[in-house]
């Protein structure tokens, strides 16, 4: 019986079995951002500990950073304080730091892969639940809490239980207008927001094989929305081609040697899985969330569900969601008017996402009452997009073109929904209050669907635009 990538990476990084029954797991790459790290550095200092391997941690600023061109010192005193804190911690510890002056700043899950830091077979941790993104390369990557950030800084290890492994196979071909975002939303819709608790998701089959790295990242990114802390795709030629020539990727002979190791780490053909799920690629439509968690999702051509269709607490969840969203059951989700359109976040802010959105936006015009913004995932993505003229397309269509950051994904910076605005968003969470207003309403969808909604002023089936 063969082994999964999860088994192999786990074994290679196991330091020992701890008395508590969990594994002491070595973390090969640790990523840090301004929001979940200050307390960790503080705890470290309180215990008189230093950073064990400062060269295995990399830092950037993304969550709270303004994207509207503001400069230091920031008007928001608390944001400014967070920047001062991370800069002091960087200075004290010697951790490499990608701030705006480097030209390599961006959302931590965008820049790790972009710089070639993220590689197959690694263990990767970050004080951020969307660390699962890096699994696109065949790494075992997961989000950790701040106390565990402290543990990684002090020991380069964490105490963690090995997850079980579920293989999710999507075979066949996606229809035009259906993207990676729709695939992962469909998976979450099918397995539920807690279906993945205790599991790592291995994504396999024709659809993932055919995807670019950007698309695989979108899928792995939202594993956590399905409850799975870890999601990965086995490394292949697509991954190796992406890595070739990246700043931190191995070069020359070393690349060939690495490539051998990377392909050895992939799951064996006869590996055993704890669970398997099969989905037909053709069955997936462009998806839109209608509720307050990412599992409350449907095809853009479907009707908003009715609470009467289920019993008990589940019924209450639907009622509660419809109440917050101010949506009526039994009506089509298409045609729902929007106030804001947001293209961005670690799920969908890479160059290919911006290209898809631009393609739909081109020649259209965002109505005056809709605020539309495009926030590239990194400074490098921004530069690349501008070289292709995407910024001009967006501006001409009435979108704001911003600097890199998390922005309206979690609204810690000045980009926030107001009152009960409805936002068509390419981000990953539609939780109540997520986009900065407790009454705000979020509809998650692909970047192309966001662009379509922006131009139409309402939720629109992007397939109709593509056909027309």
């Amino acid at each position, binding site marked *: 019986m063969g082994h999964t990538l999860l088994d192999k990476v786990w074994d290679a*990084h*196991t*330091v020992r079995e*701890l*008395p*508590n*029954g*969990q594994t*002491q797991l070595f973390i*090969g790459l640790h990523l840090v951002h301004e929001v*979940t790290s*200050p*307390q960790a550095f503080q705890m470290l200092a309180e*215990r008189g500990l230093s950073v064990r391997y400062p060269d295995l941690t990399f830092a950037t600023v993304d969550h*709270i950073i303004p994207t509207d061109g503001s400069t230091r010192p920031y008007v*928001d005193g*608390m*944001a400014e*304080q*967070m920047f001062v804190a991370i800069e002091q911690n960087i200075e004290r510890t010697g951790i490499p730091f990608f701030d705006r002056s480097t030209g390599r700043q961006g959302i931590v899950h965008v820049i790790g892969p972009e710089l070639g830091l993220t590689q197959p*077979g*690694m263990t990767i941790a970050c004080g951020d*639940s969307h660390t699962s993104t890096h699994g696109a390369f065949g790494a075992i990557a997961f*989000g*950790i*809490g*701040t*106390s*565990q950030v*402290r*543990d990684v800084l002090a*020991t*380069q*290890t*964490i*105490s963690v239980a090995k997850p079980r492994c579920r293989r999710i196979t999507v075979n066949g071909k996606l229809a035009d207008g259906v993207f990676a975002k729709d695939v992962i939303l469909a998976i979450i819709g099918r397995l539920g*927001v*807690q279906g993945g*608790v*205790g599991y790592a998701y291995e994504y396999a089959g024709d659809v993932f094989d055919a995807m670019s790295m950007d698309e695989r990242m979108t899928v792995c990114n939202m594993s*956590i929305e399905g*409850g799975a802390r870890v999601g990965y795709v086995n490394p292949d030629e697509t991954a190796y081609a992406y890595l070739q020539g990246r700043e931190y990727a191995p070069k020359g002979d*070393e690349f060939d*040697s*690495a490539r*051998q*190791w990377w392909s050895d780490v992939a799951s064996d053909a006869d590996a055993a899985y704890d669970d398997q799920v099969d989905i037909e690629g053709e069955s997936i439509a462009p998806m839109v969330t209608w509720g307050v*968690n990412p*599992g409350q999702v449907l095809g853009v051509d479907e009707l908003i569900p009715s609470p009467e269709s289920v019993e008990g*607490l*589940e019924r*209450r969840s639907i009622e*509660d969601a419809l109440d917050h969203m101010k949506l009526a059951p039994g009506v089509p989700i298409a045609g729902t008017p929007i106030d804001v359109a947001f293209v961005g976040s670690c799920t969908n802010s890479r160059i290919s996402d911006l290209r898809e959105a631009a393609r739909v936006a081109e020649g259209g015009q965002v109505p005056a009452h809709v605020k539309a913004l495009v926030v590239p995932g990194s400074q490098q993505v921004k530069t690349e997009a501008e070289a292709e003229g995407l910024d001009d397309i967006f501006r001409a269509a009435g979108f704001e073109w911003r600097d890199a950051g998390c922005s309206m994904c*979690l609204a*810690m910076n000045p980009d926030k929904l107001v009152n009960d605005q409805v936002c068509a968003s390419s981000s990953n969470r539609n939780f*109540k*209050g*997520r986009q*900065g207003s*407790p009454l705000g309403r979020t509809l998650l969808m692909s970047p192309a669907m966001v662009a379509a909604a922006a131009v139409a002023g309402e939720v629109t089936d992007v397939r109709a635009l593509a056909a027309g």
Partner: protein
Amino acid sequence: MADDGRITHVAGTGVPVRGNDIDTDRIIPARYLREITFETLGPHAFEDERRQLNGKHPFDDARFTGASVLVVNRNFGSGSSREHAPQALMHRGIKAIVGESFAEIFFGNCTTIGIPCLTLPATQIESLQSLIEEAPETALAIDVGSGAITAGQATYQAELPASVREAFVSGEWDALSSLLESGDAISAVHDRLPYISGWPAR
């Protein structure tokens, strides 16, 4: 908690917060992630919901004041990895959480800061929540080692993974001390990983 860190029993009154899939954005809104210390978070737990419910949220209900056991439903703590969520609950006085199920990162964060999260089947959660709502003064006692929960005359048998139970009972729930013990073994793994120590020549 004893001085040696052992967490074997939690006693006090309860507070039920009903609903499935309550995410960490709801437990502590992102604007409080701008605090660079956890100490100040307690008063802000569930802030937005409390404001919307205008004093009707259980955390604002005087009958549940001083409660130390939070009783929740399915997939509590989903979403963001923010440790600010359990920290806010802890600083508000919550010492244990009983629920139908928990999101993984939230569960781990709770364990690391010393909050046992125990699970009971949905129907028993429902019964415990109703019991507390009807008689908020009911004394709850949790035996972390066995998972036994008594609530007045009622008893429940809750579950906790063996490793986590052991961590609380032995006082080793904050893993850092044991992690620090393996210095040499850590170096050995560091040195054997080719992407750190260098790719072999071909």
